[in-house]
């Protein structure tokens, strides 16, 4: 109680209040006030988060117990928050980037009716609240509350424009795919309760020695399946691109600051368990790299500006999982942070473009926008450079660290990772060049309307652009400057316990120089190639051959539909029509009918003929006689 960090509850409390005020007052409050409340509460959380960050940096970590959430039998789950290095860092990212997105939204959503405007900000605040619960929880159940909470908010926000059935279907899909992952997460929690009678991080991590090998592998794999749902990895990634149905700032929020990073957070949080399960780490690395490659290949042929960014998110998340799988937890968290900056920047930039184009999202109908939107153009370019991994920008540092870690584990992982990085550079600059370079290809009316967005949109872009440039300098690799990786030092206490369990892959500084040099050179070549090619002749034809497969996302959605969705639907119909009604209910009704039929037959005996009654009586007596005297022993 005496610890100042007990006040940490303020961080999620502000957005919760914002949610309640905006949600209940959405019809009566004026739009400006709604915007101020929505953004202000997140700003307040950000301020508290900064204060918490410095507390933690000063060495103060704390578990704050608030009340008993569930206590039954031996199991006691407190509603508790854990404030340490990892959570404080995530708090900064969530509230900081979240705040910028809120500010941006005040302008972007301005054309909505007041009622929907209020609803939008209420959802947005709830989203931030859930994400804060997720990272602040001191046990897996509180994490799970946030975990499902973000799933719910993404459902509400993806289906925000609820008149369009397609959007609602996308929202349902997001929720249900997340639920599949959540199910695995839940089972992992049950497993922990089964073995350890506790779900608190402190208890679990202190007692890992009580878990058998099978337990650890099962728990870590189940948690990872949970992560694949939330963080959009193979096989549960298909909801994320569909989630583009929501308003663009929501996409930024889902993709950058919240939700998809949950899986990374969870595995980084449970790093001790994972370090003891090398098998799971290998699975994670393979799934991660496969997702990175698959999503990057799909992004090559997408023509919707947001879809390209969506697949790039999936791909970058793959990188993060690759980092986790190779045991470079710091690199994963680092990439989460830099990715939050440049992906938020890119999404908000694309929102600015869509705003200017009057809702058009097809990049084939854009082009030459750099002339009309200077700030958006420059900031978007910075975002592209950062994600491509151009030296000096944030993406370079984090991606380089991941690739170095991958090389240490296996050169094959490195090679595929590098290839994916080249693909990333290619599709990002295809996107950039097609959108901002060349000549405008839209209608005259659109051209007439083109304009730079207002300050509420451009200022967040500028701030995010600055962060995308400098964000990497908290993690300058060892071979460039000794001891400059301040993030590593900061997070050291979180991952210290798992260090002894991880195999050490020393990569010499000279090798790192070579690797970095090669990758940088290749990426630069690809960037220049893509820029010049698509500025001159944008890729406007329908894709054919292999390109068509990519444009149709490897037909994975169709595959899932045919392999899972429709069979289950058919099975439901079969059970209802072929089993429920004729068989089970048939048996029940059949019993009734049988009784009815039987009594109708028996009734025929009552003929009313005295003679037949007497005959029966005599026969009955005879039978009794025979039984009595001859058959009984």
């Amino acid at each position, binding site marked *: 109680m005496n610890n100042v960090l007990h006040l940490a509850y303020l961080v999620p409390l502000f957005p919760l209040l914002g949610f309640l005020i905006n949600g209940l007052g959405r019809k009566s409050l004026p739009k400006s006030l709604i915007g101020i409340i929505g953004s202000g509460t997140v700003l307040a959380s950000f301020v508290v988060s900064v204060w918490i960050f410095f507390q933690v940096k000063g060495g103060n970590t704390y578990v704050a117990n608030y009340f008993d959430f569930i206590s039954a039998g031996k199991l006691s789950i407190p509603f508790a928050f854990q404030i340490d290095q990892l959570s404080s860092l995530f708090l900064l990212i969530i509230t900081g980037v979240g705040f910028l997105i809120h500010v941006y939204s005040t302008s972007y959503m301005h054309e909505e009716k007041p009622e929907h405007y209020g609803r939008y900000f209420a959802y947005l605040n709830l989203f931030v609240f859930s994400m804060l619960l997720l990272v602040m929880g001191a046990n897996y159940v509180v994490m799970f509350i946030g975990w499902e909470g973000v799933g719910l908010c993404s459902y509400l926000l993806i289906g925000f424009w609820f008149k369009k059935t397609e959007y609602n279907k996308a929202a349902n899909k997001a929720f249900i795919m997340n639920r599949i992952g959540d199910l695995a997460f839940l089972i992992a929690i049950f497993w922990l309760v089964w073995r350890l009678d506790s779900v608190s991080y402190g208890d679990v991590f202190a007692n890992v020695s009580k878990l058998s090998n099978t337990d650890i592998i099962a728990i870590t794999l189940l948690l990872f399946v949970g992560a694949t749902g939330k963080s959009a990895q193979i096989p549960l990634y298909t909801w994320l691109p569909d989630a583009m149905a929501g308003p663009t700032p929501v996409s930024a929020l889902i993709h950058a600051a919240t939700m998809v990073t949950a899986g990374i957070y969870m595995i980084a949080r449970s790093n001790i368990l994972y370090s003891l399960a090398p098998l799971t780490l290998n699975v994670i690395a393979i799934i991660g790299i496969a997702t990175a490659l698959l999503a990057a290949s799909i992004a090559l042929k997408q023509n919707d500006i947001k879809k390209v960014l969506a697949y790039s998110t999936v791909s970058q998340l793959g990188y993060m999982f690759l980092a986790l799988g190779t045991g470079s937890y710091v690199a994963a968290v680092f990439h989460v942070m830099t990715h939050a900056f440049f992906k938020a920047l890119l999404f908000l930039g694309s929102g600015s473009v869509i705003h200017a184009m009057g809702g058009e999202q097809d990049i084939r109908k854009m082009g030459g926008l750099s002339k009309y939107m200077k700030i958006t153009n420059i900031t978007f370019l910075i975002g592209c450079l950062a994600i491509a991994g151009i030296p000096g920008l944030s993406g370079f540092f984090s991606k380089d660290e991941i690739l170095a870690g991958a090389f240490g584990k296996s050169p094959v992982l490195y090679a595929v990772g590098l290839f994916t990085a080249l693909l990333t550079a290619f599709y990002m600059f295809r996107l950039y060049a097609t959108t901002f370079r060349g000549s405008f290809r839209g209608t005259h009316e659109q051209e007439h309307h083109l304009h730079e967005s207002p300050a509420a949109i451009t200022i967040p872009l500028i701030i995010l652009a600055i962060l995308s440039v400098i964000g990497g300098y908290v993690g300058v690799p060892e071979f460039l400057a000794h001891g400059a990786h301040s993030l590593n030092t900061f997070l050291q206490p979180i991952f210290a316990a798992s260090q002894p369990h991880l195999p050490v892959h020393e990569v010499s500084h000279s090798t790192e120089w070579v690797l970095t040099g090669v990758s940088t050179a290749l990426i630069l070549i690809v960037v220049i190639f893509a820029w010049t090619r698509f500025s001159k002749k944008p890729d406007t034809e329908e894709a054919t051959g292999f390109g068509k497969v990519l444009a149709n996302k490897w037909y994975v959605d169709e595959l899932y539909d045919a392999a899972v969705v429709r069979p289950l639907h058919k099975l439901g119909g079969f059970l209802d029509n072929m089993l429920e009604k004729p068989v089970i209910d048939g048996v029940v009704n059949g019993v009734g009918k049988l009784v009815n039929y039987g009594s109708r037959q028996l009734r025929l005996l009552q003929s*009313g*003929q005295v*003679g037949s009654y*007497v005959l029966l009586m005599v026969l009955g007596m005879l039978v009794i006689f025979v039984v009595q005297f001859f058959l009984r022993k």
Partner: protein
Amino acid sequence: MPINYYIFLAIALFCIGVVGVLTRRNAIIIFMCVELMLNAVNLLLVAFSKMHHAVPGAAANAGTDGQLFVFFIMVVAAAEVSVGLAIIVMMYRNIHSVDVNFLNRLKH
């Protein structure tokens, strides 16, 4: 006289009664056959009563209960005759027949 003779006679009477009830449709004849069966039983009861009494060293009242039953049956039979004949008379008045096969109204 050995008891067997009584038994055979009683069985014969009883069977005649049963067959009569089963085959005839005239209520009066059926009625008489029922009486025949009752009396077959009466005969049997008396015969066994006598047999028990005749056993050497038997108690003075041995077998008297059998004869008592016979009286009961006779009383009941007499009552039955009066009620039964009354029914038959009513039946004849109503349907001008004593054929029992006409008496199947309860079926409907």
